[in-house]
């Protein structure tokens, strides 16, 4: 198995920040209807930064692991910085990705962007 998968498998087996927040400031759901993947991202925002984050969802290992990794990456970060993140930030954290599965990887990032767009 290729190396990037170790990251994915590790997050798939031990998801970080999985669950729900009480009274989140941001709460978004994004889905890939073609494959049935769903990711929900919730944020608690304080002084323009991500104070706390949770994700939840179902679907393939890649989408769920990417969501878990993303929550680790954004915790404590200022929203204005996150708004500038391109796809490559998440892709390189995963150590590359197979092009047939880009949609799965980017699902949580799409959810995050949707949640930030109104702020």
């Amino acid at each position, binding site marked *: 198995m290729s190396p990037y998968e170790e990251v994915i498998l590790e997050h798939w087996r031990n998801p970080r920040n999985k669950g729900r927040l009480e009274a989140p400031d941001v709460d978004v759901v994004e889905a890939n209807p*073609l*494959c*049935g993947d769903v990711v929900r991202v919730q944020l608690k925002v304080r002084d323009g930064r991500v104070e706390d984050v949770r994700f939840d969802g179902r*679907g393939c290992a*890649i989408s769920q692991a990417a969501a878990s990794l993303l929550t680790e990456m954004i915790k404590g970060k200022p929203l204005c910085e996150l708004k500038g993140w391109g796809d490559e930030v998440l892709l390189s954290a995963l150590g590359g990705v197979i092009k047939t599965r880009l949609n799965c990887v980017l699902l949580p990032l799409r959810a995050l962007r949707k949640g930030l767009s109104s702020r």
Partner: protein
Amino acid sequence: MIDVRAVRADFPILERKVDGKQLVYLDSGATSQKPRQVIEAVARFYQEHNANVHRGLYQLAAAATDLYEGARAKVARFIGAAPEEVVFTHGTTEALNLVAYSLGEARVKGGDEIVVTVMEHHANLIPWQVLARRKGAKLVPVGITPEGELDLAELADRVTGRAKVVAVTHVSNVLGTINPIPEIAELAHRVGAVLVVDAAQSVPHLPVDVRELGADLVAFSGHKMLGPTGIGVLWGRRELLEELPPFLTGGEMIREVWLERATWNEVPYKFEAGTPPIAQAIGLGVAVDYLSSLGMEEVRRHDLRLAARALEGLLARDYVSVYGPPAPEARGGVVAFNLRGVHPHDVATLLDQEGIAIRAGHHCAQPLHRLLDIPASCRASFYLYNTQEEVDAFLAALDRVWKVLG
């Protein structure tokens, strides 16, 4: 018995590697690989005979026309039909759209019913949905039994005097189920309904004689039966084809044209507007030669052996759910399954890393997946170039996937 080694030597792509691993191609249900004979026939046409058909007065055009019509005759013989009953289309999807449009115009009015099944590929569902909406007709779905067979009792109830069309797949591209078309034909004909059969998964894999089937219209694709993409077939009973109005209009399909009106060409040309896929039709003719030389009975036996081995292996693994009839004889060469709690896309990606190509998704059958209450499934499908060793490699790889993700 098919000599798989000799067959494989005819398929250049089977020699290729994927990331250094030998390709194991288990997705012939989506599209089959092509033998050298077909690839060369297409190239030879462009190199030696290329011209438009039915138009030129020069020798090259006459030769191209002979090759094109020769392919029609081969396909006709292959399915037990007369050449004028064989309409070339671009594929099953176009053939079914043609049928839904033309049959709709000729036979379907507001309040009529169109009977379909929950196991249809979208290609044999959406054209009927569109027709129903256009004419104010009603779509009447028929379900399946828990074993994944068509519910024939329900079908018998649904096919009433209001039914003008019964549209059903011969072999399900997900469940693998072989539907008893002659029996369904009797039900349809008893009430005067037209039986339309999607044979995309049957003609490539089973001996099919359209007269024995008893259907009125039958559609299939060349690319799933060793032929090129972009060529398909609609077979129809001659009287019915003569009754139906054309679908696409323009050149070739006319007899005489005035500024305000036109008369139609005879069948099958009435349904072949514009320049047809000439090289592709010729390639399909060669594909049919290839299948005939092996014998469709033998092709079926080979598929069955592989599907039976795969089924047995899958059913023996407690982390696997298999969809469709458990008896291999009740199926074509496809097996759909899931690994408990694992998304099918992950299974396909991990198998791909070992060079094994299977399909994962909804296989253009979303209503069926909704009914099975799964977002998607994995599907392995077999053809005459697959080996028992490949089936075993696939099963062993599944165990490794389960170890990683289960």
